[in-house]
């Protein structure tokens, strides 16, 4: 009692090491998914870190695109997707259905 066996100590160290790696990974770029469904971008407003990837997936019956001020995705048929790495705040819409709007905000 009171003495930690080497095997247990190794296990604790391993857990700490894995936990440390996981924390590091949390700082890595992430991928966020925006679903296009029922003629909306869901979520409509998405907050991400600079360098993260945002992926749009069209789940609607009809074709959509993701259109920014300076560029736009190809037309996305049902089931198709489009992804970009983001570094700035951006507003976008579907240029085929301009009533559909979305926003990306970069965390400070």
């Amino acid at each position, binding site marked *: 009692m009171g003495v930690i066996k080497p095997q247990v100590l190794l296990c604790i160290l391993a857990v700490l090491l894995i936990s440390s790696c996981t924390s590091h990974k949390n700082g890595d770029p992430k991928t966020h998914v925006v679903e296009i469904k029922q003629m909306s971008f869901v979520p409509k407003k998405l907050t991400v870190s600079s360098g993260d990837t945002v992926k749009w997936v069209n789940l609607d*019956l*009809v074709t959509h695109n993701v259109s920014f001020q300076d560029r736009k995705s190809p037309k996305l048929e049902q089931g198709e997707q489009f992804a970009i790495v983001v570094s700035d705040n951006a507003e976008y819409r579907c240029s*085929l259905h301009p*009533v559909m709007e979305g926003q990306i905000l970069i965390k400070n």
Partner: protein
Amino acid sequence: MLALKNQLYILIFVFTFSAMGNSLLAQSSEKFNDAEVAHIAVIANKIDVETAKLAKKKSEQSEVLDFANTMISDHTAVIQKAKDLAEKLGVKPQKNSLSKKLMEDARKTRSMLRKKSAGAFNKAYINHEVQYHKAVINTIEDVLLPDTENAELKDLLEGVLPALKAHLKQAKNIQNKVADNGRY
């Protein structure tokens, strides 16, 4: 209960189609089976595709042309889905009084639109699109959905509603621009 439902149909048809100048009172008390609902769905979409094709010939205004292109793309996709589903279910879309009336009215509308000059056409087309989408949305919600028995056909009709509502909003935005500055 059935009588009440029939009265409701009459009110709905008077409300929706009188706004379009199209009275369907004579058919208002009918109940439609799934094959008939499928035919109405296909025809209603085909009509808007044909009207949009006319818009592409007559209009030179980019916003109207973009809208017409979207109508062709979206309604063609819905027609294909409806046809695929009918085939899967082994249902042959069946002509009926409402789909025939829709086709008759569409012929008259296209004839009216063809006679318009370019500027007047844009306004008339967008006004028509606003009224047509309102009428189709009301008809799906209040007549077709309650009549439809097959769950997949019901899902398709429900799935189409958000697109129709987005089209309506888009058409109203263009209509307001016309009203604001008369630039079309």
